[in-house]
């Protein structure tokens, strides 16, 4: 298993050719209280670097970009009634979608250490 981050603040946990995607704790903190998660649909094909869903908070609506290309196999339905789960646990139970990865492409993605160093530069 390995975890990667994007500079747009998504994370992807990769096990074999399966990936779980969400937004980082840093992103959830920056957005403030999340009020709505627009989930993708199972079967949707998503493309690395392209928008595939969005998250709304009391402050703003933000697009979520796919960290890798793949096909959605599962979505976190619970976020429909409890979007606050993303604030409570962005990188665990607040996951957004699971995919079958089409192409394991780590280019432009950051490791946990690299991402932590990156967000340090943003404050």
């Amino acid at each position, binding site marked *: 298993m390995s975890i990667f981050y994007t500079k747009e603040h998504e994370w992807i946990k990769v096990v074999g050719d399966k990936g779980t995607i969400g937004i980082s704790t840093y992103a959830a903190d920056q957005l403030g209280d999340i*009020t709505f998660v627009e989930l993708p649909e199972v079967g949707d094909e998503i493309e690395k670097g392209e928008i595939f869903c969005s998250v709304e908070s009391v402050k*703003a609506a933000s697009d979520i970009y796919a960290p890798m290309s793949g096909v959605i196999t599962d979505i976190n339905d619970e976020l429909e009634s409890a*979007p606050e789960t993303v604030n409570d646990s962005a990188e665990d139970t607040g996951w957004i979608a699971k995919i079958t990865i089409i192409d394991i492409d780590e280019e432009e993605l950051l490791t946990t250490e690299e991402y932590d160093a990156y967000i340090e530069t943003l404050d």
Partner: protein
Amino acid sequence: MSKMLFEKSVEGRKGVSLPAMDVPAVDMPANLKRNKLAEIGEYSELDVVRHYTNLSLKNFSVDTHFYPLGSCTMKYNPKVCETVARFDGLAAIHPMMPVSGGLDMCQGALELIYELENHLSEVTGMSATTLQPLAGAHGEMLGIMLIASYHRAKGNKKKYVIVPDSSHGTNPATASMMGYEIITVKTADYGDMDLDEFKEKMNDEVAAVMMTNPNTLGVFNPYIKEISEVAHAHDAMLYYDGANLNAILGKVRPGDLGFDVVHVNLHKTYATPHGSGGPGAGPVGCSAKLEPFLPQPRVVKTGDKFSLNYDKENPRITSYFGNYGVLVKAYTYALMMGSDGLKDVAEKAVLNANYIMQKLKPYYDLPYDKTCMHECVFSASRQVEKGVHALDIAKGLIDRGFHPPTVYFPLIVPEAMMIEPTETESKQTMDEFIDAMIEIAGIVDTDPDSLHHAPVTRPVTRLDETQAARQVNVRYQKDA
């Protein structure tokens, strides 16, 4: 909270007495009859008058208080415009009345459309203007439709629309609604779209570049001519979001900067009423290249007669001629101000914003510290260290008799507070606002927690905005 009108109904009470029926009663077919009586409230006239008068006393409006909402130009709406809009010759006519043939009772109404279109074309430096769009976002949609029509007619293959990351959310939303993909360009340290990144991202598939100039940071783009040249070299159209036109009215014409389409928010720049969903008006001006695609009908003048021209197949984008009453108010405002007066609007709006910026600079962080145009954007980042956020400062202002400024926008400024005084506020009012902001900055140091409870002086205090957004419930239910 006061009771809803529904809750005040008293069975059998009446506000009107109808005369005896003087036509024969007809029995309605059973299938058209209600199964039970409609639950319409029963009141006396006085019940209703008191209900709405008391509600209106709770209104927080530009007629009662200062509204420093950035990017929204909440200026005073002169009452003379309301009077003119109610003139019988303008308010009591019907859009289907004949416009020619001896029954031409609408010549004055058509002349007003013709003259206001010409006025707006002159102010924006455009070739022609349509008054049809009913709001700014509607105008944006039409603007992007004109651009799409232009590219389609030329056989251009276009896929993208470029917006800066400081743009109004409606810009990418409109382009996306019209089927384009969005390319976002970051803001450079000079406070507007990064020229180098823009050039890198520009390509032959870009249909349009949408800009607000001055932008939402109150910064006038110093490279606008170059942006225009680069865009046009790729046959991309330059779109001007007129939300901030107030800053350059009569001073700079978007057309002279190379813009191809402009929408004007009459409910902002031309002082017509604003807020709570309108009615607004978002006229769209365009360059000669796009003029053939304007919606029909066009008002034309032949000799001294006005008529409606339907010579193209372009559809209209609204019923009839737009929000006509709003157009009357805007035209009245334009005539009343005159060309010198409109220039004065821009000068005073910019001067006022800079006055507030300079006075508050010692107390709040100013991420883009330079002479601003019509609005300035502070950040509450210094106050956040004491646990007070932009939202708490906004709520604190309510207790001091001011509408909060726009907060958390533009998105690129953390804890943003965007202040636009407009030209209609006096120095005394601005000084009172500045004093309130300074007082709040002091409270952040001495008693920060008190601001978390603000407002405490209003009919309702701090609302749970998160819960309200998560579980929207705006419907009254009788037995809830």
